[in-house]
């Protein structure tokens, strides 16, 4: 069989169209449709600024961590190997291992930093995922589809920030307070901070930011008047491991105030 150019293009177009409709086919009743929540339709570019000046006592950190972990039914597992963490703390030298040296001010090195998924612009985890179970949404959020994850843990090897946890054991017995709004996970899938995508898309505030008393600000980088844009314009901020090219969207304010530290910092 021979085929001319037009014939080929026609066939290719037809196959493409068929494949497209097959993928986009979404089940809905007669006359029904899908849509976004009102007000959440304008293009955003989400980012987070962690204002380290506002984190001074152990409670400041714990409040934020609890708010997130309780809301998302993150299990509390004591065995370090099986831990699941969406947001947690570590010291400066472990948070910014490539931006550290031995003569940093004590106020900086002794202060815990909050760590979470960086919602990178160029995320290695989505690059390596073989099933598209983790993917970047147009608004910058790196989402995780627990329904498609095969538990290969390639994303954990790929993530240079240690932001991903695997469910080594059944998490349910370790969920102390059940938030009935959110599902749990099961053994065998990888999970991580979802930037409260389910809430942002419904116009609700991000959990950790809401609990932080202003220490964590989430907003739209596309909007020059948003609070994150203004904070970033005014302060010296760090991102983790910038040299790797993942381009994180979680920024840490480490201005003079933070470095000076006064007596308030926690050990």
């Amino acid at each position, binding site marked *: 069989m021979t085929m001319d150019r037009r014939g080929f293009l026609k066939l290719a177009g037809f196959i493409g169209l068929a494949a497209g409709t097959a993928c986009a086919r979404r089940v809905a009743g007669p006359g029904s449709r899908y849509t976004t*929540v009102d007000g959440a339709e304008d293009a955003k570019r989400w980012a987070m600024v962690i204002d380290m000046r506002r984190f001074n006592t152990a409670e400041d950190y714990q409040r934020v961590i609890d708010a997130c972990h309780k809301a998302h039914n993150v299990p509390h597992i004591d065995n370090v190997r099986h831990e699941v963490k969406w947001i947690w703390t570590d010291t400066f030298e472990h948070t910014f291992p490539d931006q550290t040296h031995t003569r940093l001010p004590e106020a900086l090195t002794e202060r815990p930093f909050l760590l979470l998924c960086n919602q990178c612009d160029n995320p290695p985890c989505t690059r390596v995922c073989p099933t598209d179970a983790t993917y970047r949404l147009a608004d910058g959020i790196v989402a995780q589809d627990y329904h498609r994850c095969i538990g290969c843990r390639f994303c954990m090897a790929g993530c240079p920030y240690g932001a991903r946890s695997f469910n080594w054991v059944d998490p349910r017995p370790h969920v102390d307070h059940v938030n009935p709004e959110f599902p749990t996970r099961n053994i065998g899938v990888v999970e991580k901070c979802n930037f409260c995508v389910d809430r942002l898309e419904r116009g609700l505030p991000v959990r950790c930011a809401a609990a932080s008393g202003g220490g964590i600000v989430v907003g739209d980088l596309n909007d020059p008047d948003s609070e994150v844009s203004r904070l970033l314009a005014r302060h010296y901020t760090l991102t983790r491991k910038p040299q790797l090219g993942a381009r994180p969207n979680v920024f840490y304010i480490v201005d003079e105030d933070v470095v000076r530290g006064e007596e308030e910092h926690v050990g």
Partner: protein
Amino acid sequence: MQGTGKNLAAVAIFFLIIASPHLINLVYAKAWTGPTEDTPRIRAMADKECIESEGWMRRNHMNLLLSWRDAALRDTDRIYVNGRGERYDISLMRTCLGCHSNREEFCDRCHEFAAVEPYCWQCHYAPEQVAKEGWR
């Protein structure tokens, strides 16, 4: 013909095996009690209607749920508007199980009868039931 008896026996055994589910059911099958829609939220409804018509839901709810899942997680569509113009928050636990809060007498009873075991319940759950009884 030689071996006819053996052949007949083989055929009989074959049919016995094929028919075994029916034979077992003759003895053990229980009459099906359909799913109950008797929950506080449904009792309070004026027109007791599901998101779509009952027949449609019965036939299509599994595919609807998968579409809901993909719409919410992959395409950021969190709202489902049905033909009557009613808007529903796309959420298995809040929306479906909000009305059908009796998961065991509704979803499970039907699934047990149909011998399907949706694995969704490894992560999703009926909020009210778990609040009362904890994990099961």
